[in-house]
């Protein structure tokens, strides 16, 4: 019993944090949302070089994993820096294709995921209706779990494209919502697809929860720094009890979400993962509300970088299982409870 990150895991988080701090990530977030993906793809490669995606890929397919605790640690940092792109979806696709009965597909796709060369996206039951960044991803998987279950390649950059994709605006300008493309090459059918999809949803929820925690931690840090330097009535606004207590509440919510995220990474139990998703997304969202209020009007502008995290906190709450859906899974209640 030692429920603490190991020194290597902490060092890994610090390296990733340092890389993303040095990389002018906010500029990459903004250009990604504007449809220019060069900076975001370059960032993706650097993140991959540090091993982030390899940690979600089994060693048999040129990965370092599957290591869900390390993936969770990494996604906290991706959230802390509001990194753009379908990183959650790529990890979920890796989890799906790691299903033992889909080994032939793992061989085909996973080495590219591990190296960072292949950006993947997908939608799954238990997630939302959209494929994130379907216009950018190298591979879009189409997954059906009604009836027997079927898995298709809906789009592959290297192959013939199936259908066209219309991008819908998200409340988070850096997230590009696309409708799943129909058709495409049939890869697999039957129980392996259903089992792989259920496994993938758990990974997606875990990674989303970790990312949300990172978003919340960044919002808290930025707001604490702001209220220390912003003065009104001749004193820093951070000395006012109304301000101090809101930030204390944000700290409490985030610090109690953190162990749920790490515990869910250890167990990958559907109810644990759903609990982590609820707690981390609620904490991040509440922290976003506090961050906006304590920054005042400047926080309400698109130009100010705080907006990158404010809008991400809202988006992650809806992604990969709404708070209500995840609460149902915690209680073993509702239609998708068995699926989550």
């Amino acid at each position: 019993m030692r429920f603490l990150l190991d020194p290597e895991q902490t060092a890994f988080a610090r390296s990733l944090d340092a890389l993303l701090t040095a990389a002018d990530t906010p500029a990459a977030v903004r250009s990604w949302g504007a449809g220019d993906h060069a900076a975001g793809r370059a960032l993706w490669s650097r993140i991959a070089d540090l091993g982030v995606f390899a940690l979600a890929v089994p060693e048999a397919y040129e990965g370092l994993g599957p290591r869900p605790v390390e993936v969770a640690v990494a996604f906290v940092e991706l959230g802390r820096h509001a990194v753009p792109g379908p990183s959650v979806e790529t990890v979920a696709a890796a989890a799906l294709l790691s299903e033992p009965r889909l080994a032939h597909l793992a061989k085909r796709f996973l080495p590219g995921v591990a190296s960072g060369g292949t950006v993947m996206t997908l939608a799954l039951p238990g997630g939302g209706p959209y494929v994130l960044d379907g216009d950018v991803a190298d591979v879009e998987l189409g997954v059906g779990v009604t009836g027997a279950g079927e898995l298709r390649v809906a789009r592959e950059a290297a192959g013939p494209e199936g259908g066209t994709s219309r991008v819908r605006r998200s409340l988070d300008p850096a997230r590009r919502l696309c409708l799943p493309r129909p058709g495409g090459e049939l890869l697999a059918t039957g129980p392996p697809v259903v089992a792989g999809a259920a496994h993938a949803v758990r990974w997606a929820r875990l990674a989303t929860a970790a990312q949300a925690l990172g978003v919340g931690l960044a919002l808290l840090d930025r707001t604490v720094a702001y209220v220390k330097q912003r003065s009104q009535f001749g004193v820093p606004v951070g000395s006012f009890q109304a301000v101090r207590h809101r930030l204390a509440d944000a700290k409490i919510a985030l610090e109690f979400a953190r162990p749920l995220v790490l515990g869910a990474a250890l167990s990958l139990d559907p109810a644990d993962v759903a609990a982590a998703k609820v707690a981390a997304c609620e904490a991040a969202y509440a922290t976003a509300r506090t961050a906006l209020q304590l920054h005042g009007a400047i926080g309400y502008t698109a130009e100010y970088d705080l907006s990158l995290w404010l809008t991400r906190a809202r988006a992650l709450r809806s992604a990969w299982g709404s708070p209500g859906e995840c609460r149902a899974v915690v209680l073993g209640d509702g239609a998708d409870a068995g699926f989550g």
Partner: protein
Amino acid sequence: MDLTYSPGDQAFRAEARAWLDAHVPAAPLPSLETEEGFAAHRAWEAGLAADRWSVVSWPLAYGGRDCGLVRWLVFEEEYWAAGAPGRVGQNGVNLLAPTLFDHGTEEQRARILPPMARGEVVWAQAWSEPEAGSDLASLRSRAVRADGGWLLSGQKTWSSRAAFADRAFGLFRSEPDTPKPHQGLTYLMFDLRAPGVTVRPIGRLDGKPAFAELFLDEVFVPDEDVIGEPGSGWRVAMSTAGNERGLTLRAPGRFLASADRLAALWHERGRDPYTRDRVADAVIGARAYRLFTYAAASRFLEGEPLGPESSLNKVFWSEYDIALHETALDLLGGEGEAADAGGGWGEGYVFSLAGPIYAGTNEIQRDIIAERLLGLPKGRR
């Protein structure tokens, strides 16, 4: 990192579970906050102590099992899951005992701890005063030097359990004119039945005498009942304040058991859609608190002191406890108004309402979090 129990921890869990299965009373004891209930809870503590289950983390010499923190957490999980009675000795066990382990003399530990472990001597707190609540350091009750000891005079209030307890511990001003209010305080233990002590019970929200006022008129306390050095009482008291707010006052097992009971009630009541999200949040909160505590325990075992983090703990569990009980009463619908609703939910609710007030109000805790964890500037209190 891992959340696995060693074979020894698992065997310990099985042993605790078996003992509790065989001994937990079939019907709940009467309320702890009544004379009859207090006596019944003392008897229960004696039974626990007979088989060394009352203070598992204490050294063998004082009636414990010398268990580490993990086994203490395991025991608490089993204890509350078994539906065992509330702990009448908790003020002494959670607050006075750690202070004696850190600052007491060998003689004090040998004299005071074993009867505490057996429920023979139940301790009450004597911290707050009418003019010294959150601002505890401004307390005015006096300790005046006498031959071979001290004479205590003044008034204490909100003394939990003092209506039926045997002895009390708290801070008294032994040096009247110090530059700062927290200087010149002495930590003393005294007998609630000593000459000069008047105990006036106070009815809490439901009328039960859960606490009391203490009037002290030249109550003699021998030197052997001073803890630490005279004048250093504030430091002695604060060194274990983290115990009250943090690890030991509310073990996660208590909330895990309550959340399980709430989830079971919700299923019994046809999966009530109106309270579903709040029931889920109670289950999630209990898990969060458990894992947070395991992380804190892991850090503690690696030598990190329990610092201001215990303030995060205190706000979380006290607000969580109220939310959980409110949800239970709402789930019971109109029946939730009954004082004995659903077997204990009503009493638990009344008890939970005090949580954000005692052990340092949640506003004080938020100030500590803001200043000591977030580094925000000091403000007007």
